[in-house]
């Protein structure tokens, strides 16, 4: 069996992972970076090199925010770092042995220190009918533009809330896609709640301006924008055909081919929870995240976290937090002194502070829609893999389930291929609501290996393969 040791193994080559690798390699650490995508970049800079090379129109459409990723990607590739693309990490042990799947066979390495930089995923939006072909995530549509240069055809509606909803809407509007409407699930009370945080947000006013620019692109394209939309319901036989919703107390129906849903993004905590790191519930944005010190270290010795997997704060903060984790690794492995670490960290801490100024405002304005946090209709599918409904989850509580893992045992909700990534938060919301508790009290799925499916044949192929970069 192949056995190889690195000073630092980083899982995820997004802005956080790439920045940490650049920092650590700069201090002469041996670094291995593993990422399941074909190209380094993470979600924001997905396929930036391929897009520039093969799809110039899409590259132009995606603009500066995307193209800027080239710089980080370039400095990442100029380091001595060993980088394996198309590599899925499916198990990490607390002694920092990392098991991964690549080209159909499994392999493993050990790390003196481990950095989990697995980013965020779009929060699933379980409305009635969300499993119909034609319904997908709005950030998913954005990823599709980046990874394949493909956009929805036919009539499109975007529904939900958050900066990435507007980003996708504005990019699709610029691509002249046929958008019928943007239906926001927030209302004036969100604005009231966010208002006290506006002065602080103005310290990072470039983000507010960006937001206003995206909205003006959508409005200039003549697209209808409604706020305070409720009761979203997708309808169709084999494919999405109609969207039902309520606006200002009136039910409405429109014919639509593609529905793009978005209610923010949430940390991708499969690996940190499988490792047994301590997690906490973030009430404002309604998600679990690992508990970290100021360098990103978790409760497990030698395991740190950087980027959106720690707390969702966007690419610039992810990148800066990657540098902090890289610096701390260099210090702990005796490459730099405490003072060198602390001095170098100042620049990145300043950057984080500046970028985070907008967060209290955004997080209050764009709080996730309560209708999808605890879906009310019993027939709504929550677990897409095992096809478990909200009603079945409620029933499991009546039968005696005391927490989320109890409901999982009763219903199989969360036991499918996605390992609870799609159902976890909504199922927890339903269990908590039925028990009259808070989601914090009902817990989250225990992250069990493999966090991504691995077949016996793949395990059998674990060979004395050597790693090539």
């Amino acid at each position: 069996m192949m056995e190889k040791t690195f000073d630092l193994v980083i899982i995820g080559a997004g802005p956080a992972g790439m920045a940490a690798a650049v920092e650590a390699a700069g201090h002469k650490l041996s670094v291995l970076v593993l990422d399941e995508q074909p190209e380094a970049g993470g979600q924001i800079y997905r396929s930036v090199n391929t897009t520039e090379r093969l799809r110039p129109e899409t590259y132009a459409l995606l603009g500066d925010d995307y193209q800027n990723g080239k710089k980080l990607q370039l400095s990442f590739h100029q380091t001595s770092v060993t980088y394996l693309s198309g590599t899925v990490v499916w198990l990490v042990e607390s002694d920092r042995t990392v098991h991964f799947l690549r080209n159909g066979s499994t392999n493993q390495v050990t790390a003196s220190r481990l950095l989990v930089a697995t980013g965020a995923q779009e929060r699933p939006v379980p409305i009635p009918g969300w499993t119909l072909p034609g319904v997908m995530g709005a950030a998913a549509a954005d990823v599709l533009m980046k990874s394949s240069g493909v956009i929805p055809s036919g009539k499109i509606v975007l529904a939900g809330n958050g900066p990435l909803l507007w980003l996708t809407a504005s990019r699709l509007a610029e691509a002249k896609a046929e958008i019928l409407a943007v239906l926001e699930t927030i209302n004036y009370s969100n604005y009231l709640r966010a208002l006290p945080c506006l002065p602080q947000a103005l310290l990072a006013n470039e983000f507010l301006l960006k937001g206003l620019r995206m909205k003006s692109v959508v409005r200039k394209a003549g697209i209808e924008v409604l706020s305070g939309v409720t009761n979203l319901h997708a309808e169709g036989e084999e494919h999405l055909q109609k969207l039902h919703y309520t606006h200002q107390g009136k039910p409405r129906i429109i014919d639509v081919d593609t529905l793009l849903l978005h209610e923010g993004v949430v940390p991708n905590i499969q690996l940190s929870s499988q490792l047994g790191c301590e997690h906490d519930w973030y009430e404002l944005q309604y998600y679990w995240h690992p508990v970290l010190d100021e360098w990103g270290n978790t409760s497990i010795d030698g395991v740190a976290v950087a980027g959106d997997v720690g707390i969702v704060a966007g690419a610039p903060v992810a990148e800066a937090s990657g540098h902090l984790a890289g610096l701390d690794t260099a210090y702990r492995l005796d490459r730099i002194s405490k003072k060198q670490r602390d001095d170098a960290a100042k620049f990145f801490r300043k950057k984080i502070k500046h970028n985070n100024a907008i967060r209290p405002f955004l997080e209050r304005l764009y709080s996730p829609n309560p209708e999808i946090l605890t879906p009310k209709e019993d027939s709504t599918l929550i677990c897409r893999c095992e096809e478990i409904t909200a009603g079945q989850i409620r029933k499991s509580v009546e039968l005696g389930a005391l927490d989320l893992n109890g409901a999982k045992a009763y219903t199989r909700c969360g036991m499918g291929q996605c390992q609870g990534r799609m159902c976890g938060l909504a199922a927890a919301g339903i269990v908590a609501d039925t028990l009259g508790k808070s989601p914090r009290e009902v817990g989250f799925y225990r992250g069990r290996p493999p966090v991504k499916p691995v077949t016996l044949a793949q395990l059998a192929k674990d060979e004395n393969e050597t790693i090539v970069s």
Partner: protein
Amino acid sequence: MLKRYGKSRGKTVSIWFEGQPIQAHEGESVAAALLTSGVKYLRHAQVSAKPRAPYCWMGVCYECLLEIDGEQNQQSCLIAVKDGMRIFRQSSAAENT
């Protein structure tokens, strides 16, 4: 229902879906290439056998699972097309019973 954006694309490659040839372009994911060619769904739900299509496009939802070149359960949103690739839908548990 998806379409390609922009005229310049990578070079053309041929893939086979359920025995039918489909034209795609270098640098596209298998799932994207299929859905732009008029394929409406990629898998059947486990229990109800209802049609499903990609939801997350980033490796989270497993709605894009296909058999690719003889390997089952491939996340086709993460895999780039290659000339001559042979792709099939998988049967759901519901269909097997």
